[in-house]
């Protein structure tokens, strides 16, 4: 793959809702082609970090650089155009639209024929092809997750942000989701995952970060992180 460059770099990010700061200076980076997991106990600011990167929350300090573009405080639609996609934790699909329409919405900014993208998504999630005209709201939880991820992949993003992709799924479905994530990554998309299921997501990751109440405390290679006693102590206070 040649010399790996940083596709995303977050430096000293500070942000929060109302007047409470949730992130107090987070710094992470993702190299091109990597899968990176962000783990940490509840309330450590994992989802908030995702939202801030994608422009859904205005940063109060620090910088975010994506593929050499400064995207600090840039709106989501511009971020999408630069080649980043985001699957939020909840409501990751349009319930009253059909599967096909959900996927089309993912390619909204493209005006040309999107059948190639559709074929690509169907190749990853064959189940979606058969049920194309069913309303997404009527699908099972696992299928809805596929719709959500499929929608985000329609533009062949360079970087995919996944917020808790395995939450609320049955074990079989979880396995499927993590499998698909590796598959997507192998096809060339860098991936940033926020997960509670730290073991599983670190298992497929190149690197991982551990967040604690809005600061990053540890960084390490995949599952090695979980061998660190300090990390374990963080979860239950030792």
């Amino acid at each position, binding site marked *: 793959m040649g010399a790996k460059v940083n596709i995303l770099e977050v430096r000293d990010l500070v942000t929060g809702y109302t007047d409470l700061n949730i992130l107090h200076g987070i710094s992470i980076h993702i190299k091109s082609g990597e899968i990176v997991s962000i783990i940490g106990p509840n309330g450590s600011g994992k989802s908030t970090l995702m939202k801030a990167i994608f422009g859904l929350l205005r940063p109060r300090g620090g910088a975010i650089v994506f593929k050499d573009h400064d995207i600090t405080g840039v709106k989501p639609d511009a971020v999408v*155009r630069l080649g980043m996609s985001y699957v939020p934790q909840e*409501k990751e699909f349009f319930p009253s639209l059909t599967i096909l329409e959900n996927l*089309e919405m993912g390619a909204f900014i493209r005006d040309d024929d999107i059948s190639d993208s559709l074929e690509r998504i169907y190749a990853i999630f064959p189940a979606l092809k058969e049920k194309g005209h069913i309303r997404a709201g009527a699908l099972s939880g696992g299928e809805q997750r596929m719709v959500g991820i499929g929608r985000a992949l329609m533009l062949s993003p360079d970087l995919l942000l996944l917020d808790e992709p395995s939450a609320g799924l049955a074990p079989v479905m979880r396995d499927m989701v993590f499998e698909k994530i590796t598959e997507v990554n192998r096809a060339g998309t860098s991936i940033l995952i926020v997960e509670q299921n730290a073991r599983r997501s670190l298992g497929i990751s190149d690197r991982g970060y551990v967040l604690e109440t809005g600061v990053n405390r540890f960084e390490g290679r995949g599952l090695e992180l979980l061998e660190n006693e300090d990390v374990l102590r963080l979860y239950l206070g030792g």
Partner: protein
Amino acid sequence: MQLVINGLVIGSIIAITAIGLSMIYKTLNFVNFAHGDFVAFAAYIALFANTSGMHLASAFLVAILATIVLGVFMEKVVWHPMRRKNASRTTLIIISIGLALVLRNILIFIWGGSTRNYNIPVRRGFEFFGATITPNQVLVIIAAFILVFALHCLLSRTKIGKSIRALSDNIDLARISGIDVDRVILWTWVIGLGLAAAGGVLYGLVTAIRPDMGWYLLLPMFAAVILGGIGNPYGTIAGGIIIGLSQELSTAVLPTEYKFAVSFVVMTLVLLLKPEGIFGGAK
């Protein structure tokens, strides 16, 4: 039978005018009290074009176009800036009342408060199962049917239609998907007001037009929206027909003057018993 036909005619007008009210209610999350006055505005533009010698068909198009232009102007000058300020729902509602007053009185200012008719030949109605139907009534029902069908195609086939539905489904995800939310909102206005305008012109075909006609349509429209479930276009259409029918059928037992009250009663009952609307629809 006569009442059923009258009800269907009025009902289909209420239905197509109320769709815009419903879509804006859901997408922008406020009740546009000026919606009825856009309906009246369209009727008057058609009247103006018609009486200055234009054929009614072209006057119809001119009216729709003018209403859309006005609506887009309002979006740019009022609604969009207010959204950027994060104005509350109640602020928007009160502004819409102000706008309603302005629009209605501009009509009164220019054309006076009396009733007017289009400059079209009066044709005799024909018998149909003991009822009389005028050609204009037939025209209204056909036009409404075509418009609803066109709307259905637009919402289910075109990209812009799908994104309008996406927006009322999940506005955050729409933003995440890179949808230009402001542009889609503009299209929502265009389609909603276009339908409202068409309804206004058609209304002029079956009855006389008055500056306050929008005001009197407002309550039936609200009733249709609430009946059909806010943001559900198909529910709104059904709601409109039901309101139209119940208004006309009520005249069999009640004085004609109370037509208007029927929609009020229906609406209050729905609010009491099933506030999310009888055709489902998100709350």
